[in-house]
């Protein structure tokens, strides 16, 4: 079956919107993802999110050593132009991206300004299965009391992300995708707690 560019994309958008509004929530787009044309180098959900948000009016950047094929496919399907990480509106980090490369790009990417905080990069990060116990808690707008982080995040990742969002309203928003059609979001307003049980190191 083919992906319906009106109705299937609408469904993905609604899931994405609810995930962005409720950080930590994990949406299941498996059924829709099964219809999408595949790019061997990235998750079906990643490609779905790209098709939902990208067009010729925005730019994107793909990280990782297998970026070339993903880049070409996304450009072919969405007409979005590829740009350096410092300028891109959307940054895609496939599963194969090394952490140093990801963190370097995160330090360099657009975070918007205090006047125009919306002019910031939206990240699409591929991860292992979402919803596994991650040992961190999320809090902030969209979360009643506390929510579990959808995915294990390294200390280096969290501290780079926190540095990028400390000048709120400027900041970056993250979308995580897994191989099974799962989607989850951590917008800039979300506070990520330290790992549970980890000793506090000075």
């Amino acid at each position, binding site marked *: 079956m083919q992906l319906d560019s*009106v109705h299937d994309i*609408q469904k993905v958008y609604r899931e*994405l919107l609810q995930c962005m509004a*409720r950080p930590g929530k994990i949406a299941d787009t498996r059924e829709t993802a099964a219809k999408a044309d595949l790019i061997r180098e990235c998750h079906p959900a990643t490609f779905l999110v790209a098709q939902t*948000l990208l067009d010729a009016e925005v730019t994107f950047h793909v990280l990782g050593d297998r970026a070339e094929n993903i880049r070409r496919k996304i450009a072919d399907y969405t007409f979005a132009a590829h740009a350096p990480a410092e300028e891109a509106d959307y940054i895609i980090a496939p599963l194969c991206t090394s952490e140093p490369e990801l963190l370097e790009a995160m330090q360099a990417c657009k975070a918007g300004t*205090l*006047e125009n905080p919306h002019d910031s990069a939206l990240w699409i990060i591929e991860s292992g299965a979402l919803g596994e116990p991650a040992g961190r808690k999320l809090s902030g*707008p969209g979360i009643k009391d506390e929510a579990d982080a959808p995915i294990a995040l390294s200390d280096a990742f969290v501290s780079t992300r926190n540095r990028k969002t400390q000048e709120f309203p400027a900041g970056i928003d993250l979308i995580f995708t897994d191989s099974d059609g799962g989607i989850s979001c951590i917008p*800039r307003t979300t506070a990520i707690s330290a790992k549970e049980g980890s000793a506090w190191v000075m």
Partner: protein
Amino acid sequence: MRAEPQFAFLDEGSKKEIRRATLKAVAIPGYQVPFASREMPMARGWGTGGLQLTCSLVGKDDVLKVIDQGADESVNAVSIKKLIRATTGIPVTERTEEATLIQSRHRIPEVPLTKEQILVLQVPTPEPLRQYEKKESVTKRLHAESEYSGAWLMLFEQIMKYGRTTTGADHPVLVNGRYVMAPSPIPRFDNPKMDHSEALILLGAGREKKIYAVPPYTDIRSLAFEDHPFEGEDFSGKSCRFCGATGVFLDELHVEETGMTEYQCNDTSHCADRLERQDEKEVQHATI
């Protein structure tokens, strides 16, 4: 030959742009994200911002409710329902509980919303500082610097002149402790419903080309001074002349024949629902 209309009226490119702006709006609660407001088959200022949000959201499984100043049956609500119905074929409802998407002009329904629902509010003036500062470039900077003296000053002047704040509707709120936001011209009575709402609230201003949002479980505080706390409209001791409801937003009516002032529910579907249930009860417990 008649061409089929595009699903939900807007072309997919327009929807994409509105969707991108909406996601940013949700990520930055209370910040007005600019967007390329489209021409709609309706005059700007009649809910084109809300309508564009609705068109970008709606899918085949949705059930739509549209309210105009509390009423499901008035012109603005009916024409919006007609357009969505004609271009999507989805069912419309008047019952708040049945709706998945609720577009509203200037009221938040009396029935508490759930997390499965999305509330879309139509906004005429999204900028809470506009009365104080005409230039958009300046108000943008004021928001950037979190410099809200203007909003406080407006309320202060009202208190000095009239002894209380006189914002009939659209009383400014502070979102998540950061942005001062116009909640759209909902009565002050509805402001507390935005605080830690279960449902996602999206606000669209078509003429002013802005989209902003209040995610669920977000702190919303109505601006007020310590010695002049915020107060909603007070209807204590008053009830609806049809269904007898208390603790809801009431319209005041002057009845010429009797010279009396009467009150009735502003949320018409809530009132009709209550009346229906009262009828059912009467029939069930009827004794002859």
